[in-house]
């Protein structure tokens, strides 16, 4: 047998592999979830009060460009080798992607649809929640998908502060130079990313039946 990839290791450690995959998923979903909670109000603000869009994307853009290793190195003295440290980093990387997507999704709602909604007597809140947000949903979910896939990749980096999910295997591979670990970690991260991507495409289709019927018609 070649020792590039040792399947026996995998079969002997299925429980451990499952646990680290779930941890990876949890770190990812938490980051995207918190990222959405922060992005949504900021995006609404940027959509309504246009001049705030520049400063908001500037700040989140700067956060996006900070090298992740540097960010963790900077945070650890304050927040330790904790989930909190990992999440601060992960969340801040989702913000730019999510805010940009939500704002452009809200902007893309056709003006005549908005006008007829207001003209029919929907209150500003009803226009937002019954018209703008549902219509923006496909694009918003597209942003969530990109943010999720990006975050799954980034979680492999948070392994360096002990919050790595499947990244822990990659780190072990790096330290021990045993290829099985590296390949296992990378493969799990890829499988997770592809699965989440497909899953979110499915969710997108489920919550936007009107878009499906349109594409069905033009197909």
């Amino acid at each position, binding site marked *: 047998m070649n020792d590039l990839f040792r399947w026996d290791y995998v079969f002997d450690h299925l429980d451990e592999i499952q646990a680290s995959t779930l941890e990876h998923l949890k770190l990812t979903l938490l980051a995207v979830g918190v990222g959405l909670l922060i992005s949504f109000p900021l995006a609404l603000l940027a959509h309504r009060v246009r001049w705030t869009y520049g400063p908001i994307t500037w700040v989140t853009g700067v956060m996006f460009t900070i090298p992740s290793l540097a960010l963790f190195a900077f945070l650890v003295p304050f927040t330790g080798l904790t989930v909190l440290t990992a999440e601060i980093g992960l969340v801040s990387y989702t913000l730019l992607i999510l805010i940009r997507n939500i704002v452009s999704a809200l902007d893309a709602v*056709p003006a005549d649809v908005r006008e007829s909604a207001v003209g029919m007597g929907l209150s500003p809140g009803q226009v937002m929640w019954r018209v703008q947000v549902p219509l923006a949903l496909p694009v918003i979910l597209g942003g969530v998908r990109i943010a999720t896939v990006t975050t799954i990749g980034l979680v492999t980096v948070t392994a360096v502060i002990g919050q790595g999910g499947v990244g822990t295997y990659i780190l072990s591979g790096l330290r021990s130079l045993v290829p099985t670990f590296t390949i296992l970690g990378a493969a799990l991260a890829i499988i997770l990313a592809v699965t989440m991507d497909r899953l979110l495409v499915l969710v997108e289709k489920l919550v936007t039946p009107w878009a499906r019927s349109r594409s069905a018609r033009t197909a």
Partner: protein
Amino acid sequence: MSDPMISLDGVTKRFASGSNAVEDLSLDVPKGETVVLVGPSGCGKTTTMKLINRLVEPTTGTITVNGVDILRQDPVELRRSIGYVIQSIGLMPHRTVEQNIGMVPRLMGWPGSKIADRVRELSEMFELDATLLKRYPSELSGGQRQRVGVARALAADPPVMLMDEPFGAVDPIVRERLQDQFLALKAELAKTIVFVTHDIDEAIKMADRIAILNTGARVEQYAPPLEILRDPANDFVRDFVGAERGLKRLALSIVGDIDVEKGPVVSRTASVAEAEAEMDRSGFDWVSVVTDGELAGWVDRDALKGVSTVGDAKARPFSAYVTAEDSLRQALDSIVTSRTNVAVVVSEGQRYRGILTLEGLSKGLSS
């Protein structure tokens, strides 16, 4: 004018970016009437309409709807009492046809069963097939979408309708059908309607009164269509109404509005001599043959050769008739295409009423 439903008094709207879109506009829309605002593109029609449902707030002036100053009303409440249709319709793409039509009733908290009944009623009224109700707007044709838009605006039975070029985006044939359908409904519904178009023919067809607007929504003439066609107030109106003013008037009046001439007519029991006397009297070379009041056709001198009574001759049918409900334009068409330049007027059951000639038509118009 007693009791206008909508009243604009000295209304001006200045947009931050430019000159006055609407300048010192005063206009009363009587209850139950359809007022059509017509004028060139950019003259302020849409702005005027949006002032009424507060999508645009006036810079100065007062607007009342049903006697209440709209600036003292909650805009959301005001808008729910006014049906609103725009050219691009603006149906909710993420809602089915059914949900689109039921939108305002749902906002107003109607119970589900009442909404369902109302949606059914409106879809029948607008000939929207039941299978369409579950579809999304993107799956409809332009004409269907347009009808859904109007049905949606009518859903909560608002006393006032604002319609901004509602039939502008469909092809001429569909447009004409929608217009006819809406005219029939309008007669039933007794709504006060403000209708915007840039098409004078549509204005003439739909309006009880037309307001011809110039730049800044300046009213050049405000009068019923016939009056505008008969007496254009100035050159702007004359130009806008365009050539064929006379023809347009013909389209607005019906045969029943004017007197018909008796025409050459005999009963089938009449003798040939009587028939010929009738031709001589009337100056035509043919006579209509009537049996018990019913029109059988016509005969000429040739057909009467060798018979003793008119009934023995073979009466030939007229190629076309007009009835009292037909427009004078149709009558004119019938006159100029007939061999003898006469339109034969009948009523129900082919009962003979008389004839219309060019001379009679123009006399009828000038009276």
